[in-house]
């Protein structure tokens, strides 16, 4: 009997679903290998069906997206109950993802911004004798494993078709990978970067550039050119997609297994290759990184040690 598999999304953009569809013809092979019992985007099965299953009836649930609302939390818990294995699929589920940048502010901060001079929606309102409600927005975005125990992770925003295919293979293999494994290579992206041999022995940066300041040479190491490329800090598996697009790596595959806080480590490493021993000189160089949080925690703020809104100051003060 083929293993039962479920796909679900929490707070995600749908890119992870597309990433599965991007298996293209291979989708059919996957569909053949497993018995998909729940995949809202493509197939007609209902949450009620899931609720009706025995606990642990589902072999693997792939959940993408972060947890931001009370309902997402409920769904995550339901699938955890019904599944032997839960896989956090994609950067949002693994690390919080780009929507996790919202952790620099609070839900009320978001509402104030979006509804500047308008009526802010209420969670509950009586209308014509009936009560209409909206689900609760948590004050912060959470990576999936802050909400439920997670067995495996598939990194990437979105995961590359190769990583997705390999992950399916790895999970169907016996014995399965170590619990907690991130199902992608455990080296940094430089390992598969076409420009790796163009990196000089001793990179010392006296200035950082933005793409608006200078064109990126399509052949040389992007970091060595002064663009904060996070390839050296970021797990491989993407196939260096952004580098091939001649843009710096922004870290969507997260850290290797040897690093606990992606942004802190990336920052630590980049700062180490800044030139100069005088505060003034160092600061001058660092001015080129105008947005450290957005640079080093673009995909991982909710999974970081500090999570974002750590301090007492007005947030996001520049």
């Amino acid at each position, binding site marked *: 009997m083929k293993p039962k598999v479920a796909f679900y999304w929490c707070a995600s953009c749908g890119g992870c679903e597309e990433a599965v569809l991007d298996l293209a013809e291979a989708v059919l092979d996957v569909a053949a290998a497993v018995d998909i019992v729940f995949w809202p985007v493509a197939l007609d099965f209902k949450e009620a069906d899931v609720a009706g299953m025995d606990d642990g009836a589902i072999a693997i649930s792939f959940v993408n997206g972060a947890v931001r609302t009370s309902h997402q939390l409920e769904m995550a818990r339901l699938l955890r109950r019904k599944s032997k294995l839960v896989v956090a699929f994609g950067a949002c589920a693994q690390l919080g993802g780009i929507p996790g940048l919202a952790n620099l502010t609070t839900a009320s901060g978001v509402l104030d911004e979006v509804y500047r001079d308008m009526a802010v929606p209420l969670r509950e309102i009586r209308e014509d004798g009936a009560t209409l409600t909206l689900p609760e927005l948590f004050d912060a975005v959470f990576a999936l494993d802050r909400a439920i125990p997670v067995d495996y992770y598939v990194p990437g925003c979105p995961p590359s078709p190769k990583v997705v295919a390999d992950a399916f293979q790895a999970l169907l293999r016996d014995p399965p990978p170590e619990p907690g494994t991130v199902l992608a290579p455990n080296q940094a992206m430089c390992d598969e970067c076409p420009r790796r041999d163009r990196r000089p022995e001793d990179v010392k940066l006296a200035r950082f550039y933005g793409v608006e300041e200078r064109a990126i040479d399509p052949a040389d190491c992007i970091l060595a050119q002064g663009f904060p490329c996070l390839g050296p800090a970021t797990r491989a598996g993407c196939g260096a997609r952004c580098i091939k697009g001649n843009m710096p790596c922004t870290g969507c595959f997260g850290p290797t297994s040897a*690093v606990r806080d992606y942004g802190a480590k990336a920052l*630590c490493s980049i700062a180490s290759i800044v030139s100069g021993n005088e505060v003034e000189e160092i600061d001058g160089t660092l001015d080129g990184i105008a*947005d450290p949080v957005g640079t*080093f925690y673009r995909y991982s703020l909710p999974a970081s040690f500090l999570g974002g*809104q*750590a301090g*007492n*100051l007005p*947030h996001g003060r*520049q």
Partner: protein
Amino acid sequence: MPEEFEPKIVAFFCNWCTYLAADLAGTSRIRYAPNAEVVRVMCSGRIDVQFILKAFAKGADGVLIGGCHPGDCHYQEGNYKALRRYRLVQRLLRQMGIEEERLRLEWISAAEGDRVRVVINEMVETLKRLGPLRKAEGERAADLVEVA
């Protein structure tokens, strides 16, 4: 009014200078505030930004880094690496709403026992003024993670 807030400081001290200075303060019986606990590293260059953020996440109200004076690093230039990381992480903390006074970098040579007193006492005063740093990681995770 509850008892006065006693800030917690995690101090990462270089084995060759600031840690020795702290020992010297001891042998000289120099008295200072008991709020700082020292983690000894061989060089301020070993201090990973992860350690600093971890300390804040786990409830430190302040973090102190002690290294050798510029030009005096026991390993030639580890302290410069520490300085560069410090300057950048300060910018990050500011974005996260953490006052820069909560992270301090000091060059303290093996001979400057009294400097240890001055710096730690100053820092304790500053942190008492700033008040506790809200715990981010702990509290939030507790919101969600199911108690198995």
